Structure formats: structure tokens, C-alpha cells
């Protein structure tokens, strides 16, 4: 055996992050939990197929509008934040729980690259699960309708962008929660269903302080909401929404990295 050169520096950020990514994606994506999440995300596809096979007599909405509701209400408002909570909060804590973080921490790579690699794996995982469901939902609801499949093609692409941004931002927020708290689940759920759920529909400027109000502003083809939500829903220009979501995501990630870089992980048998 030859002796390794001890003067070697820490590996550069991105190549190291890429190697962490390749390991993490394999440990994140092909797992039973991903399958179940995919099954849930694919519910609208199943529902759409049913609707097309057994169409109600007086369908009050066009397929394209229904797609808008599904994207806004099912994906952006409810399921994607939950997916982000599931995978995002587990970014580091999963490795701590499974006691495999030691393998990363005892390699010549910076903690920043570990975190970035894990986060990239998170993004690729959640997008792999989400994007086909959004696309298939659109196709199932719009193919062969009077408006035609191509009618909302640009909206479909925008919806995909909105979903990706939602996953990025909530992922960042929940990654922060995951590295800060030992039990991020209940605070995460409180944030999603108490803060995001109620405050987003308050009158006045209250919705400015929720992420969901910005995320829903990105879905431009949804019909108006009903009840209180219709009265108080606040919508922001697309540019502002993208900016706010992007900034919140990046700042959360930066904080999460800062905490992760300084924290000790006592992993013992």
C-alpha cells in the first residue's frame, strides 16, 4: 500500500457535492417511501382517468380549468409542501438517524458540499416524483377536449416551474427546520396547516408573510376559489412571487448550511 499525500486540500465544492449527490440520490429515490409519495401524487391522474371514462353530465369546468385547480390546490397548496417536509426535513436527520452521516463527515469534503449534494438529491428526487404526475394530469384532463391538448402548453410549463420553485423554497425551509430541530415534524405541520393554511387567507397584508400566497400566484389558470378564500385571497405579480420564493429558499438554505457546518453530531451505537 502506498501512503496518501497528507498535504492534499479539501476537495473542491462542486465535484464533492456531485459525489455526495450520487450517493444520496440512490439512498433517497428508489425507496418504498418514494413509491408511496408517487402513488399519492399520481392520484389526480387516476382521478382524471375516471373522470374521462365516466364524465359527469354537466361538467361545470373545462379540463384545463380542472387542471388549474389540481395544480393550485392539490400540488402547490397541499401535497408539495408535505413532500418537501417529508424529504427536506430528512436531508441530514435521516443520515443522523441511520447513523451514516459519519461516512460523509470523515471524508475530505466540506460540510457545505455535503449539504449541497444532499439538497440536489432532494430536488432531483422530488422533481422525479412530481413532474410526471403534473404532466400526466394535464394530458389526462386536456387530451381530446374541445380546447385541445395544446391549448395550455405554455401554462403546463409554467406550472412545472411553479411546482419546482415551490419544492425548492419549502425544501429550503424544511431543511433548515430539519438541521435546527430534533423533531421537525410537528413544527413543520403547524407551519403548513396553521400558519400557511389560515394566514394566507386573512384580509390585509397578512398573506404577504406566507409562502403559499406567493406560490399560488404563480398558477394563473386556476378558477377563483370559493368561500373565505375567494373573499380574502391575495395574489402577487409573478415576478414578485418568484423573487420572494427564491429569496426565502436561498436564505433558508444559507441558514441551514451555516447551522450544519457548525454543529456536532454525536452518533453512537
Amino acid at each position, binding site marked *: 500500500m502506498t501512503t496518501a499525500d497528507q498535504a492534499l486540500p479539501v476537495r473542491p465544492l462542486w465535484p464533492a457535492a456531485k459525489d455526495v449527490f450520487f450517493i444520496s440520490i440512490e439512498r433517497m429515490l428508489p425507496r418504498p417511501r418514494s413509491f408511496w409519495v408517487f402513488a399519492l401524487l399520481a392520484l389526480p391522474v387516476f382521478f382524471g382517468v375516471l373522470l374521462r371514462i365516466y364524465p359527469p353530465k354537466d361538467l361545470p369546468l373545462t379540463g384545463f380549468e380542472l387542471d388549474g385547480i389540481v395544480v393550485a390546490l392539490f400540488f402547490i397548496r397541499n401535497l408539495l409542501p408535505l413532500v418537501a417536509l417529508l424529504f427536506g426535513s430528512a436531508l441530514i436527520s435521516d443520515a443522523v438517524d441511520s447513523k451514516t452521516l459519519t461516512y460523509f463527515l470523515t471524508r475530505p469534503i466540506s460540510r457545505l458540499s455535503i449539504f449541497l449534494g444532499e439538497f440536489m438529491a432532494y430536488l432531483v428526487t422530488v422533481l422525479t416524483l412530481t413532474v410526471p404526475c403534473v404532466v400526466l394530469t394535464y394530458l389526462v384532463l386536456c387530451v381530446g377536449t374541445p380546447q385541445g391538448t395544446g391549448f395550455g402548453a405554455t401554462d403546463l410549463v409554467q406550472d412545472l416551474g411553479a411546482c419546482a420553485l415551490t419544492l425548492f423554497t419549502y425544501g429550503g425551509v424544511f431543511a433548515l427546520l430539519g438541521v435546527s430541530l430534533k423533531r421537525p415534524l410537528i413544527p413543520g405541520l403547524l407551519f403548513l396547516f396553521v400558519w400557511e393554511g389560515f394566514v394566507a387567507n386573512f384580509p390585509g397584508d397578512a398573506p404577504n408573510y406566507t409562502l403559499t400566497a406567493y406560490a399560488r400566484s404563480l398558477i394563473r389558470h386556476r378558477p*377563483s376559489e370559493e368561500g373565505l378564500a375567494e373573499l380574502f385571497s391575495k395574489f402577487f*405579480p409573478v415576478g414578485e412571487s418568484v423573487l420572494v420564493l427564491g429569496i426565502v429558499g436561498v436564505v433558508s438554505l444559507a441558514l441551514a448550511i451555516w447551522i450544519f457546518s457548525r454543529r456536532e453530531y454525536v452518533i453512537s451505537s
Partner: protein
Amino acid sequence: MNRSRRLILTAAAISVLGVGLAFSTRLTGTARAAVGPVPPEALALPADSSVVMGFDVKALTGSQFYAKFGGEGEPGRVDALAEIERKTGLNPERDIDSVVIAIRAAAAAAASEPKATGPRHHGPENALIFVTGRFDAARLESSLPEAGKAQKERRDGVTIYREASGKSNGAVALLDAGILVAGDAASVETFLANRSTGHGIRDSQALVAQLESIEPGSTFWAVGGPSVLSRVTSEVGGPAGNLPAVKQVVAYGHLDPEVGMTATAQAADAKSATKIADVLRGFSAMLSLQSGQRAELAQIADSISVATEDEKVHVKATITHELIESLKKSAMAAHARKAEVEIH
């Protein structure tokens, strides 16, 4: 990462194929169904329209012409656009793709709407405006009741707002987030009825022929039938008032690299056509005569060419951006001189 790679590739393949299918259908679907510059969704506009005109707002806002002349001298324009966006979520520059306006002559409108009572006005009530773009539907809807105290009705996937003030009977129908139709309530209803029955512009072969003759890619265009045009020529007065009746006009144009417009008017016969051409040539000659005072006028006169072909009159005009710029400058100078004189 063999297993994850397979999953990622499968997901990517599904997504790319799906999006590709949507876009390819959009392209091929439009090409197959559109009539001239009228998008397929607008074909439910009434066949008895006297004038149908349209603007490709996307091409307009993306043009060099718009970049040069679109916002200058109007400091409030940006604020106004921002205000519209704040209230309705709609940024006309960004969100509107195209506008098609169909104007129905009073007689035609009255004939097709026997229930309509009371005096009818020429103007917006008889104009049906069809807009395509991307509308933030929920926000647009939430802004409408505030502004006009409208009554909202949802029917067959379409949201219809009617003015409830009683002063007018305007209506706006939001077909979905991509299409908005506005006009008088009866016309909007006709449009919606046509949409479900398949009637519309295609019912009029003449109108379809006129629309098909428009050069593809035109930024703005208009086709007109006899009734409106005859009224225009009689009401305008002056030299135009003596013009022979024009049966129909097809006009279209573009903005880049120079502003170009082509119009073809169809007169009753060759004699009338010649008369119209003569009037236009005379107008051009008058501009040339004034070139001593303003050199740009000569250039304008040069840019206009008039020709006849049996009962048709072809008019072509090409004005460079530089010429428009100099016209604008001299107009501003004249305005400044006028202001100076008033001060003194």
C-alpha cells in the same frame, strides 16, 4: 446510481413526451384550424361582422418599433401598467398575446337579436373584443366586482360577468385563463352560443376569403364589409365624402424593420376604383407640394404607392423608423415653438 438513474430517466421521458405532445398539438392544431390571422378559439365571432380587426400584441411589444416609440414621452405609462397589474394581475404588455375585434353593423346586430330593445348605439356595444393571453383568472375575477358591481354567473365552465348598474348591458366572459371576450351582453351570448354549436366566422365565405388573404405574420390587420365602410365614407365628409362606395377593404401591416401597410379596397367597378385611386394620388401629391416647408412630407408621399387592378385599389405604404423619428422631432419642436409664442 443505476436504480435512481432509471427512475429519473423514466420520469424525464414521460415529462418531455407529455410537454412535447402538448406543444406539438398546439402548433399543428393552430395551423389546421386558424382562419388567416384569426386564432381557432376566435372563430366563434359572428359571421355577420362588418369589420374584423386584430393586433398581434406579442409581436407589437416585442418589436423594435415598440422599443423605440412605445414608451417615450409618456411617463405615466409605466405607472398605469403597474396599476393595472396590481388590480387585475394582468400586465397587458406581458400577458396579452393577441386581440381580435369584431364590429357588427347596427342592422345586422338588430336582426340577429330580435329581443334587444331600445335605442342601439354604434360603438363599443356592437364591438366584440376577443383577447388571448394568460390571465390570472382568480385575480381578474376578484377585481371585476369591485370595479363594476358586476353580476357573476358560471355556466358550462365559463364565468360571465354582466354589468348590473343598468346603464349599459356590457358583459365579460372569461372562457378560461387564456381567453377573455368582452362586449355587449347579447353579442357575448352569441359568441358563447356559436362556440358550443360550431357556428361563427367560417359561416361567411366572403369573410373567410378576406381573412385568408392577409399576409401571415402581420402585426395588425383589418377586414371590412360594405355597411360599416359605406357609413364611414359618408360620415367622414371632406374629400373622402365624395368617394365612391367601397365594398370591402383588407388591410394589414407590420412594424419592423420599417412600418409597412398594405390595403386593398374593392370598389363597385373599375371606374370607381380608378376614382378612389385618383383621390389617393391627389392626397399624395398634396403632401409632396408641402415638402418645401417640411421635408419629411415628401418622404411620406414617396413611400405611398397606389395602383388599381380592375375594381380593386391597392395601396402600399412603407415608412422607415428614422422618418417617424424625424416627424416626431419636428412635431415636438413645433409644439415647443407654439408654447413659446403663448408665453410671450
